């Protein structure tokens, strides 16, 4: 078996008395679409925040691509190749779709402040190269008609797509999607599974997604991890997890 792209080892995090993440260990293989399911407050988002280093773990390690990342600062995560979306979307509200996506290219910028102030040819060349990448992503996710619109004026479904697009502009190895289908209508949700497939195949990105919609999870993912009260309940193939007695109990709350 090949080396895991991401692995966590006994990861724990508490907020006061609440154990949001409790001794969580799992591995994600390169090329996988790995889903995380669990009832509200199970600690799924907290887990994402740990991986993207917005939160510091109380104990445990995170290893990405052979490197321990549990003690590097949050702003270095993107350059290692981890991109994410947020549950309630965190876009740059007053900027256009294009400029939001260009910020995804930030980690690939090689120009310094002085050349930027003078907009030297090197900066202009880089801007054009950035647009090439951005435009490919726009094509992939069908965002052409929103390209120059300001985020504040866009409907929710489009915003969610723009956030994914922005993350893809990083050209990440690992993409973390926090509830990609929440707030979307059934057709849009249908589309989600299609573009997740595109993303994992065309971009070769490994995907970890938190999702409540079980049919989407079953369609899109190779493996599923169920969590409840911060702890791992089961990891396995989608059908096995759906029928797992402990998972059912976690959801129904016996």
């Amino acid at each position, binding site marked *: 078996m090949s080396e895991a792209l991401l692995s966590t080892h006994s990861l724990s995090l508490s907020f006061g008395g609440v154990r949001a993440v409790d001794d969580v260990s799992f591995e994600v293989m390169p090329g996988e679409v790995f889903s995380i399911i669990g009832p509200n407050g199970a600690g799924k*988002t907290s887990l994402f925040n740990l991986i993207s280093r917005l939160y510091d773990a109380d104990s445990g390690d995170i290893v990405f691509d052979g490197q321990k990342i549990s003690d590097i*600062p949050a702003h270095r995560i*993107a350059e290692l190749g981890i991109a994410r979306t947020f549950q309630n979307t965190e876009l*740059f509200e*007053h*900027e256009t779709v294009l400029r939001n996506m260009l*910020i995804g290219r930030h980690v690939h910028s090689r120009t310094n*402040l002085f050349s*930027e102030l003078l907009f030297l040819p090197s900066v202009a060349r880089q*801007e054009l190269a950035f647009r090439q990448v951005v435009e490919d992503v726009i094509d992939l996710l069908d965002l052409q008609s929103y390209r120059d619109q300001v985020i504040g004026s866009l409907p929710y479904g489009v915003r969610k797509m723009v956030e994914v697009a922005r993350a893809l502009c990083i050209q990440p190895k690992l993409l973390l999607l926090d509830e990609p289908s929440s707030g979307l209508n059934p057709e849009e949700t249908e589309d989600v599974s299609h573009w997740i497939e595109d993303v994992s195949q065309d971009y070769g990105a490994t995907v970890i997604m938190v999702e409540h919609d079980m049919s989407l999870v079953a369609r899109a993912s190779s493996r599923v991890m169920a969590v409840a009260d911060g702890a791992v309940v089961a990891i396995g193939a989608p059908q096995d997890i759906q029928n797992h007695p402990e998972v059912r109990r976690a959801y129904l709350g016996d």
Partner: protein
Amino acid sequence: MRFVLKTRYQQDINLFLHNGQRFWYALLALSVLAAPWFLDRFFLGELSLVFIYAIAGIGLMLLVGYTGLVSLGHAAFLAIGAYTHTWCLQRGVPLPLSILFAGLLSAVAGIMIGRPTLRMTGIYLAIATLAFAIVVEQLIAHWESVTGGYRGIVVPKPELFGYSLSGSWPFYYLCLACVTGCLFLALNLLRSPTGRALAAIRDSEISAQSMGINLANAKSTAFAISAAFTGVAGALFAHKLGYLSPDAFTLLTSIQLLLMVVVGGLGSLHGVFFGAIFIVLLPQLLAISRDLLPAAVAQLPGLEPGVFGLILVLVLIYEPLGMYGRWLKIRQYFSEFPLYRKSTHKRQKSYLRTERVR
């Protein structure tokens, strides 16, 4: 209405969107270049002052309007620029170099205030920058060997390669050259990665971080650049004043600068110029209205700051996008004439964002 069909990426990074824009800006450039032939000394002086304020405004706009960090202490950078410039000129440093030094030293001061306040926003940052300005004011008042303290110092007349620039014409062109240069730098910054990083911080710090933006560096950069522009404005302002003393750079000056960017329209460089014109005209309007008002009101000592504050509050409530925002609406009204609907610009309810990270 005009729709621009973009066919090449190059069109995205050009400074002007289309030929129509190029035409209007060229016309504007011509008229400011020709202004000395049409305006008398007084108005030319006022226009120079507009340019000086605009330079400071560009600096403050980058910080407040683009990075989302508020400052109530920009008078300090204006002062640092003015005193540095004067000090350099007294020692025979050539004018362009001296203006550059004024900007650089201000930038250093900007980093000094930017670093310790990295985690502050809103009202806390306003108070911290205010405190910084007070410290600088006190420093100027007491460091008599350099600044002359409350006695003040005389600013040497500007000259370049032996030619005096103190006449209203040459000084006007000096200010015009500086404001054009600063505007060019600011526009470049805003279409580059660093400029986008600043806007990202303004709109969402956590997501900026997750996009690989180092908040500490980016905020320090914002403070440094903002202070540098304001320092350059300070250097020119010194000539305008002719005589420097600490009471030229008080809290009122800081508020005036903030008023300029807010009234002009946050988040736009057009707004800076609208704001600068407003700020220069306001004292004139106040002077006229003083004659019209009953004596008891007109003689009130706090009239000027009071009016400033009132305008600031009114703008924030009724037209948060300032004069530039209003101008855009008027322009849209005419371009869509019979079809314009009032609700076009109703502010939309934004989505609930109580759970920021979750």
